[in-house]
């Protein structure tokens, strides 16, 4: 019920719809940052994409608005049925609290927790040992995104052409009707056949409208691919962080050892300057060693906790990914079946119309 009450808000005037959409965006951003190990459900498209010519690319078009409303409702249902996300308080107040929700979200300070895009990109390039499964998952999500967008593009073109075939048959109706006026025996047959051609031409509108819903189902998973990649990115970032911390710790330990034993194994500016300007006093060295030892201790603790964090992340992320995979397979299989059902219905309609037309023609 709470879900419905929010969706009803969508029927409000157009500019309040935009505000609502931005609030959905805010909610999703909050969830993505707060639960980086979860494959967060995607929002429906903001602007109409993959349109074929008859559908307007206009965002104010009532059909588009309606389909987006359904998409937003679907988003909320996904979140509500997710074992982890559904318990989030901010999500709960999104559904129940009218005013002040925005402020509440901002107060959580989630924006500060967000990783910078640049940092993430850097990590992706430089990480040395990411979990193999995540690397594979990243490839998969790239392939999924590419193949679904290709499919949707071609589907739009096919829909366009199919529309053309059906609509041109409508011209038969008019000409048959005019021709029937000068015929005596053929007149009736022509006239009624023409009527069936009109029916045939008109039938494509509903058929393609239904197909749009199928396209929307595919689009959801197109956008899910991005959510998958976000989880992979987070893993890469954490792993990179871990690797950097480990590297840092190693170098500090080495420094410490060098200072303690007096040997210089690695080149350092300090080493050079001390060679040029004289060694440090033992007191200075002791102080440095102490600082380093403290840092090393801190570093080891941090590394431990980072390791733990990383392992926890991988564990819980992978659990959600398995959940996601099952959901995806189930949903896509259903979608493909529904596509077949639509094709069957289209064929049956075609058979009916042409059977009727054939009867009229044979009576000419």
């Amino acid at each position, binding site marked *: 019920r709470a879900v419905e009450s929010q969706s009803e808000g969508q029927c409000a005037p157009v500019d309040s719809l935009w505000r609502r959409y931005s609030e959905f965006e805010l909610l999703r951003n909050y969830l993505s940052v707060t639960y980086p190990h979860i494959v967060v459900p995607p929002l429906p498209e903001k602007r109409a994409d993959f349109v074929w010519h008859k559908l307007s690319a206009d965002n104010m078009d009532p059909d588009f608005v309606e389909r987006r409303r359904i998409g937003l409702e679907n988003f909320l249902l996904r979140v509500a049925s997710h074992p982890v996300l559904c318990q989030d308080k901010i999500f709960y107040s999104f559904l129940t609290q009218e005013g002040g929700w925005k402020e509440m979200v901002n107060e959580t300070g989630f924006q500060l927790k967000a990783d910078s895009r640049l940092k993430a990109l850097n990590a992706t390039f430089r990480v040395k040992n990411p979990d193999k499964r995540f690397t594979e998952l990243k490839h998969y999500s790239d392939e999924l995104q590419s193949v679904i967008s290709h499919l949707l593009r071609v589907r739009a073109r096919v829909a366009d052409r199919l529309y053309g*075939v059906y609509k041109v048959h409508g011209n038969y109706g008019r*000409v048959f009707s005019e021709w029937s006026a*000068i015929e005596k025996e053929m007149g009736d047959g022509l006239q009624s*056949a023409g009527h069936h051609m009109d029916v045939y031409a008109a039938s494509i509108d509903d058929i393609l409208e239904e197909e749009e819903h199928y396209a929307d189902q595919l689009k959801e998973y197109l956008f899910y691919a991005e959510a998958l990649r976000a989880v992979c990115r987070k893993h890469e970032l954490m792993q990179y962080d871990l690797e950097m911390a480990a590297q840092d710790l190693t170098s500090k330990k080495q420094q410490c050892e060098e200072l303690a034993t007096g040997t210089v194994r690695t080149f350092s500016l300090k080493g050079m300057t001390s060679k040029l300007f004289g060694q440090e006093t033992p007191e200075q060295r002791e102080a440095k060693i102490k600082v380093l030892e403290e840092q090393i201790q801190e570093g080891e603790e941090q590394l431990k906790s980072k390791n733990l964090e990383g392992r926890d992340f991988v564990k819980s992320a992978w659990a959600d990914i398995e959940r996601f995979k099952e959901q995806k397979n189930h949903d896509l299989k259903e979608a493909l079946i529904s596509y077949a059902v639509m094709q069957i219905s289209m064929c049956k309609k075609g058979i009916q119309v042409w*059977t009727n037309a054939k009867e009229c023609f044979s009576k000419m």
Partner: protein
Amino acid sequence: DTSLAEVNSFCPSMPISPSSMINQYKFEDGPELRDLFITVDDPESHITAIETFITYRVVTKTSRGEFDSSEYEVRRRYQDFLWLKNRLEEAHPTLIIPPLPEKFIMKGMVERFSDEFIETRRKALHKFLNRIGDHPTLTFNEDFKIFLTAQAWELSSRKKQGPGLLSRMGQTVRAVASSVRGAVKNRPGMFTEMNDYMETFSQKINLLDKIAHRIYKEEKDYFNEMKEYGPIHTLWSASEEDIADSLKGIASCIDRCCKATEKRMAGLSENLLPILHEYVLYSEILMGVLKRRDQIQGELDSKVDALANKKTEKDLFLEEIGKLEDKVERANNALKADWDRWKQNMQCDMRSTFTTVADNNLRFYEECLATWESFLASQTADLHVEEDCEDRP
């Protein structure tokens, strides 16, 4: 029941005797027995210093007495067919001479000697000769017989005998002039009706021809997009495990529907498009026939008008007028009879053609339906198998 249109397509490769053919093609509704069978096939190109042209083999099998032999095989080129058509028009100005395929096809951008063009032309020439053969009057025309039987040199010499190009042009000019001059005022109502009918019919048949071509084009565009659609699903299946089979299944369904679309297109181009084109040509022919009838009437009318001003030689004039009146009556009767016959055939052709179009579409949808239904069955069968596996401990 055998429509006249169907009987015209006759396969020449079977060695059949004329008498057995007569038995095969006996009509149920009429006592007509065919005694003349014509085929046009085997196009061959000939290259000379001056030109390149195609000849077609014309095979005639007959049991008619006026033919010296029962079987003839000659080679004819398009020019020869054109000559025959002109001769028939001259001999029978108010009969409906069947349409000849055009000399050039501009709009199709088809190369003059492409296989497609030659085959389309061959079929049309075959129909042309058979329609003449089926015509109760034209079938006994002497030039027709010569066309079917004469050797090349005999035909050439016959061609030189006829009235020249100039006289033909003169005839056309007179026909146009007299129709402009208002032979219309004495035209019997029946022929005015025919004229009105033909004007509308011509308009509508031209529109239908355009519509049919447009449908063909749209179907072709659709087919081209569909070709790309199926393979994407196969590509996708390579990244998937659980749903790979479903995706491959969809890909194969789409491919099969694609092939079915190709068949539907072929049906259109083999059946509907040629017939509509023929009737576009027919509508021009009929307008010409009506004009020529008007012209013959015009001759009579102008003589009658001239008589009114004549003081002397009235008897001579009256005799001439009598002859012209006979001519007009013969022309009118011939046209009327041929018109009725043409309308019957047109109705028959249209009925059979459009019924075939409907059949082609039905076959298309039934094939697609079967494809998708078997896919659906395979998917739901899988689901049941999965459920069973889950239920088992």
